[in-house]
């Protein structure tokens, strides 16, 4: 007969162990993903080239990683702000679309003075994203409607709205494709860093990360978020305003997602297109989970995933790998991370049962 194996909870994990779990989980995930690529016929040497040399050891590659990571930092932070207190924002893309619409609106109709146009675009985007998540947040807090369903479905509503605008009133007459007019140069576009395609959006992203870190670590709101995330019933019994805090956190989440949308439009596309927000909900949740909803590891994870995006683009083009390869690698890293994380909380014990 097989001897039983028991899971024994570990005591408090020290910081070094949590850091090792984080790095080890990502590294192991990448290794498994490389195994899958090798099975696809990409040689080990080519993988090293594409994933390390051309991505992280090459200045142009690194610039691409920074560009790819900019929206990922935003969506990772957005997902983390809500997931921290177990509010499942599955509508990050929808809020990105709304942010994109708001920013484009400000740009197309030249609202506000020119020197303030760009900040206004981002402020409008944040408000629009926050309002879009406000609908599921209100329905959840007032009528206990499941926010997973409503936030997800509102994504499709947002996309319909974008299609309506791009095929209709906001369609650029000079283009055969469903795009808006270009944003005005020097006024409505984020400045380049003079390094590949990278742009100042990364500074906004890192600034948002710092702000979220400060909120979570130092502010009363962050303390409330900690408490609600740990145990919502005990938090309510302790007198914490659960509804208000959840609403604030959801608004931060939606606002960050909205800014992500505006950043993609103003930093890379310089107009609204039909392809700006695609796929970012999934990436945001992956990044937030691996970063354990903490801003600093979330930002680091966003850069790793940005590297995977960059390498994935090359793999698609030069090795004829399917487009899903990036998502596949992300998923493998997430799954590995979840397993590694589990074993940092529990250890296996063979032999005699330890009675509780």
């Amino acid at each position, binding site marked *: 007969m097989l001897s039983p194996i028991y899971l024994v909870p570990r005591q408090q994990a020290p910081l070094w162990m949590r850091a090792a779990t984080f790095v080890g989980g990502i590294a192991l995930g990448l290794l498994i993903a490389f195994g899958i690529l090798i099975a696809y016929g990409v040689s080990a040497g080519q993988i090293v080239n594409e994933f390390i040399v051309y991505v992280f050891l090459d200045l142009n590659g690194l610039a691409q990683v920074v560009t790819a990571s900019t929206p990922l930092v935003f969506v990772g932070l957005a997902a983390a702000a809500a997931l921290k207190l177990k509010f499942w924002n599955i509508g990050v893309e929808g809020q990105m679309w709304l942010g994109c619409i708001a920013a484009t609106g400000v740009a197309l109709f030249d609202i506000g003075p020119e020197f303030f146009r760009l900040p206004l675009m981002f402020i409008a985007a944040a408000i629009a994203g926050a309002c879009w998540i406000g609908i599921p947040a209100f329905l959840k807090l007032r009528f206990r409607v499941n926010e997973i369903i409503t936030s997800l479905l509102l994504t499709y509503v947002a996309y319909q709205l974008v299609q309506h605008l791009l095929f209709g009133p906001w369609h650029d007459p000079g283009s055969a494709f469903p795009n808006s007019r270009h944003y005005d140069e020097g006024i409505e576009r984020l400045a380049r860093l003079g390094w590949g395609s990278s742009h100042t959006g990364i500074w906004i992203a890192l600034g948002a990360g710092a702000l979220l870190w400060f909120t979570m670590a130092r502010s*009363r709101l962050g303390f409330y978020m900690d408490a609600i995330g740990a145990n919502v019933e005990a*938090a309510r019994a302790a*007198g914490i305003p659960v509804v208000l805090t959840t609403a604030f956190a959801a608004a931060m989440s939606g606002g960050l997602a909205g800014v992500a949308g505006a950043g993609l439009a103003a930093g890379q596309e310089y107009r609204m297109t039909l392809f700006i927000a695609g796929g970012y909900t999934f990436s945001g949740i992956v990044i937030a989970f691996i970063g354990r909803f903490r801003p600093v590891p979330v930002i680091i994870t966003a850069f790793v995933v940005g590297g995977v995006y960059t390498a994935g683009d090359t793999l698609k083009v030069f090795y004829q790998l399917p487009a899903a390869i990036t998502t596949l690698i992300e998923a493998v890293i997430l799954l590995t991370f979840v397993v590694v994380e589990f074993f940092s909380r529990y250890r296996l014990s063979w032999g005699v049962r330890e009675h509780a």
Partner: protein
Amino acid sequence: MSHALKIAGASKAFDGRPALRRASFACDWGEVHALLGENGAGKSTLMNVACGLYAPDEGTIAVDGQPAAITAPADAARLGIGMVHQHYKLVKRFTVAENIVLACRSALGVRRPRDAAEAVASKAAEVGFDIDPDAVVGDLSIAEQQRVEILKVLLLGARILILDEPTSVLTDQESVAALSFMRRLAEDGHAVVLITHKLREVIGYSSRVTVMRGGETVLAGAETAGMDAETLARTMVGEEGEMAERHARTLGEVRLRVEELSVRGAGGIGVEDVGFAVRGGEIYGIAGVGGNGQQELADALTGLRPPARGRIAIDDDEMAGRDVPAFRRRGMRAVPADRFRTGLLAELAVYENHGVTGVPAGEYGNPALVRRGAMKAAAAGAIDAYNIQGAAPATLSRLLSGGNAQKLLLARELRGEASVLIAHSPTRGLDVSACRTVHDLLQGAADAGTACVLISEDLEEVLSLSTTIAVISRGRLVGEFAAGEVSRAEIGRLMLGHA
């Protein structure tokens, strides 16, 4: 004739806290044997030992006169021991037959629900149950679900049937039917163990009774015939023990006044038309068997659950319908029954748990920022003052033992000025020394002029601490006495609905 089931000298401790102390039990074939005791007396633990769910620290088990090694539920099933637990283990979306196949595949020798339906139907007919094997379990009444559980156990070949509080969720008529069925099983030669705390069932349906108290067997297999409720109640709750010191206190003004309070129940019994007043310095004890509306009452008094009707006034301010922050601003403090569900944030540090009620009240910083340093310093002071062992401010609170977790909770709740303290089962699961500490802290709070409400299933605790004692039964207060003016047996009878 040898005993059907005999347990001797069984001891079992959880986390160093004894649940069984050399408990013994013996029942015979062909009898309904009642196992009586208060909540926490060790009845369920003892029977879980018999059916292989717990391994005893010491003690022996014999089935039909043969020593039995029971280390897993499968061993118990092989020996013909089957238990129907208080919480049914049924898959609600499956049919009756599917549920039975899930549990008894090898015993029935079938794999598919279709093949089992016939066996289920014939067994049901044999014992006189009217059950459709194709009915979905979720559509059945609680009583019918119980019959499915019983069928499951019988089909597994059980000849010794243990039923844990089988009537606690049934209506009176359903209870009579279920108990009569148990009598029939016994007449067929089964041994039936009826775990209960209802005297009526013991007297009406069992032939012998074993009584447990505090993990020990205090009455072993006495004939039920000729026993009266009074004797049983006294055996169950014990003789007047030595009382903890109750100080004489000068009582102040009424600080908590409850009038005509009704609270809707969460699935079970709610609170019906309850009224009482508690003065500063008073400990108002509410005794009762668990599940008689205590949770709903505590929730209403702490602002967690809005009452359906009635008034709650703290220091003459009307509070009914207001939220927890409002209650806490008026000085309400609470020790909830389940300290890790509604009391502490298990995954956060000790200092965060100590500070969590202070932050919304404006302590430790300002509305924008929190000062975690100040929170840690305050927690370090509380760890010393309350002697919370194994804790530093940064320790995760889930790593604390039950007693130390409760001390942390009390340290937080007794911080600053408290007008009203609602303590619900504050010593549940604690060892003797931690109990003492908690009792001292409660008395200390009363000494400081707080109006304390002590809701507890532990009669000893209520009697020894309270200045006024009330009894809750089926959501109503069924008696109110000044301390010393009521006998333990009287309270016991009221608790059990034998007014």
